[in-house]
């Protein structure tokens, strides 16, 4: 069986690509959602550590938090969890 060579991502290259993409398409929801999914996969499969994930995700708008929660857990969000996220988002708006 042929041995696969894995070229692991670095935080620097991921950050550069993410920031360039956001610059090409400022305010794009599609870009944000694509990168959220992309980074989620890298985290779950241990290709990046959570500290790198947190720094990279901080470049993206706080959208699709409930859907992201469901993606990671593999189950629909509960009403209690949904309430917690709503309260968090309301608090974020108040702080703006």
């Amino acid at each position: 069986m042929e041995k696969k060579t894995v070229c692991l991502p670095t935080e620097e290259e991921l950050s550069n690509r993410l920031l360039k993409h956001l610059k090409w398409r400022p305010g794009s929801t599609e870009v944000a959602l694509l990168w959220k999914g992309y980074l989620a996969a890298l985290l779950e499969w241990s290709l990046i550590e959570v500290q790198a994930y947190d720094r990279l995700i901080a470049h993206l708008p706080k959208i699709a938090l409930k859907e992201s929660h469901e993606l990671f857990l593999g189950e629909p969000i509960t009403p209690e969890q949904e309430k917690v996220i709503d309260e968090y988002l309301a608090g974020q708006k108040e702080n703006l």
Partner: protein
Amino acid sequence: MPPDAPKDESPPAAVESPKEPVAAAGAPAPEEPERDEGAEQGAAKRGALKGSLDGLTDAEKEFVERQLAAGNDVETIPATNEQRSADFFINGVRTELKTVSRIVDTSPDGLSGAISSRIMDARGQSSVIYIDARAQSGMTKDVAERAIKRAFGADGRGRISRVTIETLDGTVVRSRRQ
């Protein structure tokens, strides 16, 4: 300081260079060492117990005993009703203990998803969570690692600070912040 570590040891400072790969697939994450409980227990002075073991389940009592043997101070606050588990302060840090053993879907996806969900449930009680999954069929360190990553990802508010998952395969400890 992780509650499972002897009091006189601190986790090594993690060094992360952005030019280096963030983590190798399948390799242990760099932020915290894997524990060697046997060595720790042999070297550490026994911790002090504050509070009573009355009302604790067998699993909770065993958890307390292992923490004490590892040199950690434990304070117990028994549950006030049947709906809630007991609270523990390990070296002064509130720690939520969850025991899992009855997850039916024992595929890596099923186990890591179910355990990440338990971690999310536990975060309301404490940001430091300890999962005893030694009795759970199918649990490995790799599955534990994946469960923690899934919980960290779902926890967009960053309320979880540290998760420990104990399996028969070994123990995985991961901190969100360094």
